[in-house]
């Protein structure tokens, strides 16, 4: 499997009734690992059925394939349906480029910095 590391932590300062999780992905998401890695994010979504928002820190994400983008779209659909937000922070140019070409940046907002992305979600 291609090496990738996903860490999930709470973001402090969320308003009452809201939960914000920071999901940091370091490495490459591809066909060899994405199905396995996606499970941890589904667990978070299932554990917080209402008011969950997700901030994806893509600072260390080097590559994502179309299946990874499919997962991201699915997470967006599930979180949005339960009243939450999904945002992307600090994605590299090649990641933004691929998200743009598939049209995902029309759904999920991307911010240049993690602080900016967190601020939007905590509003």
């Amino acid at each position, binding site marked *: 499997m291609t090496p990738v590391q996903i860490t999930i932590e709470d973001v402090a300062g969320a308003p009452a009734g809201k939960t914000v999780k920071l999901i940091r992905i370091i490495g490459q998401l*591809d066909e060899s690992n994405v199905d396995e890695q996606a499970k941890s994010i589904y667990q978070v979504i299932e554990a917080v059925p209402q008011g969950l928002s997700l901030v994806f820190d893509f600072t260390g994400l080097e590559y994502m394939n179309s299946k990874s983008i499919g997962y991201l779209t699915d997470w967006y659909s599930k979180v949005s349906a339960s009243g939450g937000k999904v945002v992307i922070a600090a994605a590299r140019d*090649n990641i933004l480029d691929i998200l743009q070409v598939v049209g995902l940046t029309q759904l999920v907002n991307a911010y240049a910095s993690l602080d900016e992305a967190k601020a939007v979600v905590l509003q």
Partner: protein
Amino acid sequence: MLRSNFTEMDPTPQSHQLEETPQDAQAALGQPVVLPLDERPTEIMIQIPTQAYFLSGIRDFVVNLTKNMTGFSTQWAFRFQAVVDELCNNAIEHGSKPGEFIRITMISTKGKSLEVIVEDTGTGREKINAAQLTALYQERRQMMTQQYLGFRGRGLPKIVGEWTDEMVFEDVPSGGLRVKVKKYLRKEEDKVLSTQKNPSHLVV
């Protein structure tokens, strides 16, 4: 020497003759055209086992090759990385069974074009032929014209389709499928961060 031979045989005006290249002269004389070394296409073929594990190395290779040998920008190097990855994933998922192989060929004509050919053995469980893939591609392109929230199906129409100029699907006589894509280097396009164009594709 070649030019002078050409001049002797060519009846066109002198001004036109001066624009001809040595390769034109060779062709006019019926001789094999010999390109200068730096203008010859570079062709690299790689065969890998039918396992996604090997694609990480292929992606690194594609980025480095594109950056260093094709004339395309770094942005396009990463785009080709994704194009090759998506084509290989399809070949592994549909075309070649585990224990067999897929074959990747890259043909770079420096400063002009980059062609990628991915071929499977046609032994996969979900094997499809060129006609079926053409129909599937057209169907998915149509789906993608509106906001698409589906899980799968973006690779070929959006990533490969948007970032190449030509796409050809061919049945291989031995039973496999060959997908050929080609991108021409255009300086004005190469400078932009992201294209919002709607390319006209040659799909066979």
